[in-house]
């Protein structure tokens, strides 16, 4: 009886809406047989992750307070107060990482399979903007995690925007809702993250899917089967009619398996590794912090840190335009011809090069050796071998080294910051005069400490550093020593 009742309701709904009749041909449309493959699941996996982000995001928005003074507390409440709140945050965080990752894999697959070529140019361009939207979601999401990382990340974003010639200050005003990061900034980013970009993303997604349906799934690329704008569409139709399979269930099954797998992977990561942050209240007066972006921007973080200063403005302003411009122009630059990666060594090499560069920069970004170790001065002990046998003055020098935070950038005995050179053995590289000059005037990316040290402190510090040389290497001396006395 209930079964018959349900069927009646379904029939009534179908009669009034006609949705089933509209969807059946979509699900049943034929696709080339070989595309029912696990190589073709990354797009739908990204879609599944997007759905997960929407679901977890809506739940988070129920608790999150988008105000500068309460956002942080609401995150702490989610982490520690709300039942399973931490899991929700963790799932949203790991979901965002996974979404960026799978999206990049999807783009790589599309690139290597030549799927961006005629007639699917617009599908690709749509995808490029979907990538930009996703990265925009990632950045704004990082800002909504209103902690020290967010605060300084936003500061860096704003200072990049401010470099735009002419419109810089206006751009910053739009971005931050004022000249500085304030209460309006968070409201602005909340609106962008929750309404604006998601709406754009969904619209683009709809267009993207419509184009896939309209133009058909890219056939499996065969070496030697060239794309010709005159004949391609006819040949594709013929192939699908001759050897096509219905999308549902043969190809859809693999999509669904992959979708379940990525979502499950995100949930497992969330359960095992938990949420990220929030890492410290975003107080601009707290400067002993080492802010870092989330995983997907670590490569940019490393790139910006390592760029020579004189290239910065040019690369920051021109780089994104060139990169996006190239991605958009790609289907027009090579819209026809060979699709198979086996016959496109240049493309394969370019993709590998980009992956390698991003991978290397991400690796550097994780360790970020250029960041000072903020508690190095008080938490990394002077190695006892550099303490034993030293004079009272030299020991005072070691104290100056710690107290003036030299260890935040310089290491001793393998401990301390890596921004500057290690100080073990410094006495065999620099003479006493050179050490004094370097400390007082800085140089080579080191600040000058002349105004922060008393003469006695400099004397003590240099006396200590002069003891830092290997047993078998003498202290460095000036070549003019005999003329000017034994310096």
């Amino acid at each position, binding site marked *: 009886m209930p079964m018959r009742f349900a069927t009646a309701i379904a029939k009534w709904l179908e009669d009034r809406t006609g949705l089933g009749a509209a969807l059946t041909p979509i699900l049943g449309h034929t696709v080339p047989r070989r595309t029912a493959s696990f190589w073709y699941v990354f797009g739908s996996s990204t879609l599944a992750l997007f759905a997960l982000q929407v679901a977890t995001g809506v739940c988070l928005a129920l608790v999150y307070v988008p105000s500068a003074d309460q956002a942080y507390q609401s995150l702490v409440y989610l982490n520690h107060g709300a039942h399973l709140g*931490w899991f929700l945050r963790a799932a949203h965080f790991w979901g965002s990482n996974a979404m960026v990752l799978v999206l990049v894999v999807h783009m790589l697959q599309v690139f290597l399979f030549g799927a961006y070529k005629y007639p699917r140019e617009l599908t690709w361009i749509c995808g490029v903007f979907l990538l930009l939207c996703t990265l925009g979601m990632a950045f704004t999401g990082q800002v909504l995690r209103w902690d020290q990382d967010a605060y300084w990340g936003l500061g860096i974003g704003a200072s990049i925007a401010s470099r735009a010639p002419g419109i810089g200050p206006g751009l910053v005003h739009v971005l931050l809702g004022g000249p500085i990061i304030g209460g309006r900034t968070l409201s602005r980013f909340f609106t962008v993250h929750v309404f604006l970009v998601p709406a754009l993303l969904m619209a683009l997604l709809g267009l993207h899917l419509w184009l896939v349906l309209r133009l058909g799934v890219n056939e499996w690329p065969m070496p030697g089967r060239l794309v010709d704008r005159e004949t391609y569409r006819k040949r594709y139709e013929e192939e699908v009619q001759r050897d096509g399979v219905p999308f549902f269930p043969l190809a859809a099954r693999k999509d669904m398996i992959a979708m379940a797998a990525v979502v499950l992977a995100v949930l497992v990561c969330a359960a095992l590794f938990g949420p990220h942050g929030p890492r410290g209240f975003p107080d601009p007066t707290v400067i002993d912090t080492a802010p870092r972006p989330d995983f997907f921007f670590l490569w940019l973080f490393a790139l910006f840190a390592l760029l020579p200063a004189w290239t910065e403005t040019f690369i920051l302003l021109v780089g994104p335009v060139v990169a996006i411009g190239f991605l958009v122009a790609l289907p027009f630059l090579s819209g026809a011809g060979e699709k198979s990666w086996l016959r496109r060594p240049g493309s394969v090499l370019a993709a590998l090069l980009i992956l390698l560069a991003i991978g290397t920069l991400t690796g550097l970004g994780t360790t970020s050796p250029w960041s000072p170790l903020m508690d190095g001065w008080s938490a990394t002990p002077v190695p006892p071998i550099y303490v034993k046998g030293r004079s009272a003055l030299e020991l005072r020098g070691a104290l100056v080294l710690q107290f003036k935070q030299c260890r935040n950038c310089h290491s001793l005995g393998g401990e301390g910051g890596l921004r500057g050179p290690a100080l073990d053995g410094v006495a065999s590289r620099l003479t006493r005069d050179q050490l004094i000059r370097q400390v007082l005037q800085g140089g080579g990316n080191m600040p000058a400490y002349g105004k922060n040290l008393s003469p006695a402190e400099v004397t003590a510090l240099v006396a200590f550093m002069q003891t830092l040389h290997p047993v078998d290497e003498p202290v460095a001396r000036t070549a003019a020593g005999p003329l000017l006395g034994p310096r």
Partner: protein
Amino acid sequence: MRRGASQRAGSGAFLVLMLGFFVLGCDSLPGRPKESAEEAAQSMDFELLYATHCAGCHGADGNLGPALDLHDPVYLALVPPNRLRAVIEDGVPGTAMTAFAKERGGSLTEPQIEALVQGMLARWSDAQSLRGMALPPYAGPLGDPRRGAEVYATACGSCHGGEGRGGKKGHDIVDSSYLALVSDQALRSVVIAGRTDLGMPDWRGTRGSPLTSQQGSDVVAWLAAHRAPVVGRPIFEKPRG
């Protein structure tokens, strides 16, 4: 058909199990955040507090660092706990000992400083070993530098050299730059508690009779008399090393 039904039942049970796991067993999942950044900053754990804020200068285990030996029962018996607390809170102006109290621009709360004081006393003091010894008082007025020179000659000169400019075992201790970076009280503490971790004996010395409080005051006065009005201008000094 039956196999299909049992399979469905099996997967249903699995789903319910998983759901139960997530809803009920979540508190023991490894990903659950242990403590917030604020809570971590409020830690009262002595080991953590010491390793983060003190080890840099005072050594990983309280000794063998460039700064005063804290892992020394004599020093801990010498210094009144209130003074220990005050030094951590306010620092010692003009020296490398910085103020750690939050209200003084540091990063430690009052209970955390108390945890450091109590932790040091609990771990590194040893009242038993000093029972019956007449330890000179922590503080004392500056004595007479002329008498101090005599005390120096008998008690210190054999290691630090006749004039204090370094000898067989000890180094230069009258260097004006050194004296500019050290307080009279720190000199007195070192004279009394020594730096046993680095080979300098405490007030009992290696031979002869222990120093009295007055002798300590005198020798500190003698050292302080070596302070120079203008110090550490490297170009005017005799080259070292």
